[in-house]
């Protein structure tokens, strides 16, 4: 397998598991077995009567490798156990994240010509994730309960190949979809006083129709953004297609590219690692088919002069995805222009009893737009029947009582309000039980005129005039006045 190492450029890389549509999950050539533990291989000697040898670099004096330099194979021998002991010597592949039915395990193995003692090799499978549990002694198998194949199961002399022989095992019986686990090679021989010689293993490959992950990404927002807006958010979601394989444990990266009119201020999401404020964001945990990672939230500010629409792109990559067609999402956001937007409210205070003259309407002009006003702002107050204005004024306003009109020309900032305008009224003795005030604001450069009127309705009790003494009348009118007030307050509450 030297040629594969050369093709990949690094011998170490050749020993790493990787996923892909071409199905090459694992290839190991045993050029230097000292590098294998770092690449995820696990060597465990569970022999009882532990001997002097674990797995070792092939001894070319016994036989040469199947491929590569003469010592380039994995060797095991009777010395795994002491004289008379039982051998259970394990070599576990790195964790494979995409084991599926139909995939193929191939390897070569042999013993020496004329071997005077019998050898046996079991190939077992664990689907318990990265577990390397093979139990505690020569008879245990831990999580490696599935036997893929056994070479020389009856442990007969001459039952083990004496020249390099290709072994092919097709994976079957696994849960549908991608499974994570390891393949275990178990040199398994009882009683080394009579059995066990020397075996070699070379050129281990796991290949086949493995299903790769298929990641996609979406990006959404709510409503329109407006020029100058701060704290607007997008939601980015990475999903793995239901019919795909799990991601392979390699890094998944989300990169968001913002247009000129938007500036990122933060990006985060559960389980993601994100440089602030704009990413890209990464994670390494596996994502099962049909599942999504926790969403990413991207917070942006909208430029004061941002054009509309703002279109930005987000891309996901990695995780063993080999279908790039769905790895980018575009999001188009309408950006509304900046403008003032005036509203007005009317409230009231004081007595509105028939015949009274202490009541007043309080008018408040507010800019709910996203730009300051400019030019003259005009407020016109219209009193309903039964009332007449006796005064109109407000700080900073220029008011005309006759027309109940006030104007001013200073700019009003977004979210700010002008000083209150007070319209003092007299209520006629015969006023109706419902009194209505309507105030309208206009001007200031606003373009939205749908919200420019504020109404205020006041209910007043009917007046009763009994025939009483003047003193009683005075007392009664005072009591009724109080009751009217109480009634007003009741209704307002």
């Amino acid at each position: 397998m030297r040629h594969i190492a050369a093709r990949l450029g690094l011998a170490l890389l050749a020993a790493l598991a990787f996923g892909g549509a071409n199905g090459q999950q694992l290839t190991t050539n045993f050029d230097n077995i000292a590098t294998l533990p770092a690449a995820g291989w696990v060597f465990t000697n569970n022999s009882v009567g532990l001997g002097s040898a674990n797995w070792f670099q092939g001894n070319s004096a016994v036989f040469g490798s199947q491929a590569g330099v003469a010592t380039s194979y994995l060797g095991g021998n009777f010395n795994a156990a002491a004289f008379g002991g039982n051998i259970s010597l394990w070599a576990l592949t790195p964790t494979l994240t995409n084991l599926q039915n139909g995939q193929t395990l191939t390897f070569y193995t042999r013993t020496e010509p004329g071997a005077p003692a019998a050898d046996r090799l079991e190939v077992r499978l664990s689907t318990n994730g990265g577990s390397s549990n093979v139990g505690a002694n020569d008879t245990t198998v831990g999580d490696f309960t599935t036997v893929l194949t056994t070479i020389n199961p009856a442990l007969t002399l001459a039952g083990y190949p004496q020249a390099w022989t290709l072994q092919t095992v097709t994976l079957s019986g696994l849960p549908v979809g991608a499974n994570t686990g390891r393949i275990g090679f178990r040199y398994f021989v009882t009683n080394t006083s009579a059995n066990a010689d020397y075996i070699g293993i070379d050129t281990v490959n796991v290949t086949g129709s493995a299903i790769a992950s298929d990641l996609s990404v979406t990006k959404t927002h709510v409503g329109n953004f407006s020029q100058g807006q701060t704290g607007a958010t997008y939601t980015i979601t990475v999903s793995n297609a239901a019919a795909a394989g799990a991601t392979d444990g390699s890094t998944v990266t989300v990169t968001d590219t913002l247009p000129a009119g938007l500036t990122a201020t933060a990006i985060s999401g559960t389980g993601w690692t994100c440089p602030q404020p704009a990413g890209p964001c990464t994670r390494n945990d596996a994502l099962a088919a049909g599942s999504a990672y926790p969403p990413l939230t991207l917070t942006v500010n909208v430029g004061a002069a941002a054009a509309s629409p703002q279109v930005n792109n987000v891309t996901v990559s990695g995780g063993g995805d080999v279908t790039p067609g769905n790895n980018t999402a575009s999001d188009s956001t309408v950006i509304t222009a900046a403008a003032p937007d005036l509203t007005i409210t009317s409230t009231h205070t004081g007595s509105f009893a028939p015949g009274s003259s202490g009541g007043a309407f309080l008018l408040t002009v507010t800019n709910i737009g996203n730009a300051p006003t400019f030019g003259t702002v005009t407020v016109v107050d219209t009193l309903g029947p039964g009332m007449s204005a006796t005064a109109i004024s407000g700080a900073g306003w220029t008011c005309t009582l006759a027309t109940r009109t006030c104007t001013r020309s200073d700019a009003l900032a977004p979210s700010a309000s002008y000083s209150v305008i007070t319209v003092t009224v007299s209520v006629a003795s015969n006023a109706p039980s419902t009194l209505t005030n309507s105030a309208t604001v206009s001007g200031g450069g606003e373009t939205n005129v749908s919200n420019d009127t504020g109404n205020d309705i006041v209910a007043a009790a009917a007046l009763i005039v009994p025939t009483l003494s003047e003193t009683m009348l005075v007392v009664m009118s005072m009591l009724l006045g109080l009751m009217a007030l109480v009634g007003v307050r009741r209704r307002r509450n």
Partner: protein
Amino acid sequence: MFSRMRLAVLLAFGALVSPAAFGAATITIVNADPAGVGFNDPTVVAPVGGNAGTTLGQQRLIAFQAAGNKWGATVTSAITIRIQAQWTALTCTATSAVLGSAGATEVFRDFTGAPVAAHWYGKALADKLNGTDLDPATADINANFNVNLGQAGCLTGTFFYLGLDNLHGANIDLVTVLTHEFAHGLGFQTFTSGSTGAQLAGFPSSWDDFLFDTTTALTWTAMTAAQRVTSAINTQKLVWTGANTVAAVPGVLQLGLPLLGVSAPAPVAGNYIVGTAAFGPAVSSPGVTGEVAQVLDTAGNLGLACTALSALNAASVAGKIALVDRGTCTFKTKTLNAQLAGATAVIIANNAAGSPPPGLGDDATIVTPITIPTVSITQADGVTLKASLATRSRMHSGMTANVGLNLSFRAGADSSNRPFMYTPNPFQSGSSVSHWDTSAFPNQLMEPAINADLTHEVTPPNDLTFPLLKDIGWN
């Protein structure tokens, strides 16, 4: 003014015996035994092997004179060399014994005539070099010999042979033992401690300039104490560099050193020290080369090969060099079982620490001819080779070895003809460093054990003792 250190308390002088006056030096034996003991033992004995003495004491003294005369005819000194000797109880068991011990009584440095300043010289050599007796009141050499040898519990039944003709048979030739011990007294010893590395009073011995460790490439003089401690147990890596000795080695030591030579795999390739077997064919050249196969037949991952090999082990070792473990049965049993399974040679890994690996004794109860060579290796080397064999198959290991004589070496010397000093691990007090390594062949007088095949000669072509003494200043 020179410096002097007294090395042992002298006992009272006994009667002076007749001097051995021929040769280039005069050597006298000072009898330090009390009445009725040792040299004064009145037990009547028959003459033996040219020793005409009529009592046990007389024969002992005559044997001493013979050994003294050998050295007197070999070394040259104007100053009489006086050897104070006594027979005492030395350490022994029923199967082993300290035969004797000897050494200089005093050491001197920086005397007139000293070849190297600030180095210790034994008294006999210092006297010779100086031309005067630097301490006339003290003998030059002190020697002790085992008075109980052969008695029950002391190498039971094996006695000193007191004849002068070396026809010692199963007994131990006293003249040889004496010649060996007197050589120590003449200077075949370092005064630096091999167990602590400490120099005597802070000065190196004249020896230490010639002790060279091939691992560190340092002489003992140049080493730290800690380095000397390590060097003293660095088996077959501490060599003697004296020019006289190195020049004499090719004429004395046999070509070829028994070794286990591993040629593959590369991480364990090299030469491994072996012990040789007293059974089967001797390790030869080119020896047996083949793949190494390890026997496994016993819980604990041992391969004892104490019973007929299983079919599986037989399949493994057939046509190969079998590696087995020491223990449970005799070495020869293991070799026989491997041989019956078709092995071409046997390596036995020691089951206890230490080096060199043991020599492998015979098992007379096995009469089946052994046709394949057997060697032993240290436990540590066994561990090394087994670790390399861990990834083998039943039929192939990829480890290629040769059990044979390595002709790059002479027996007991390195490839530069520098003889190995005796540096076993663990350290053997009284023996380590101040002897030749036991791998020397033909056997040498100054190996730590007296081999039965020694002659009385101390010079080439038989022996390297006198060349070493010349290196430190004798002639």
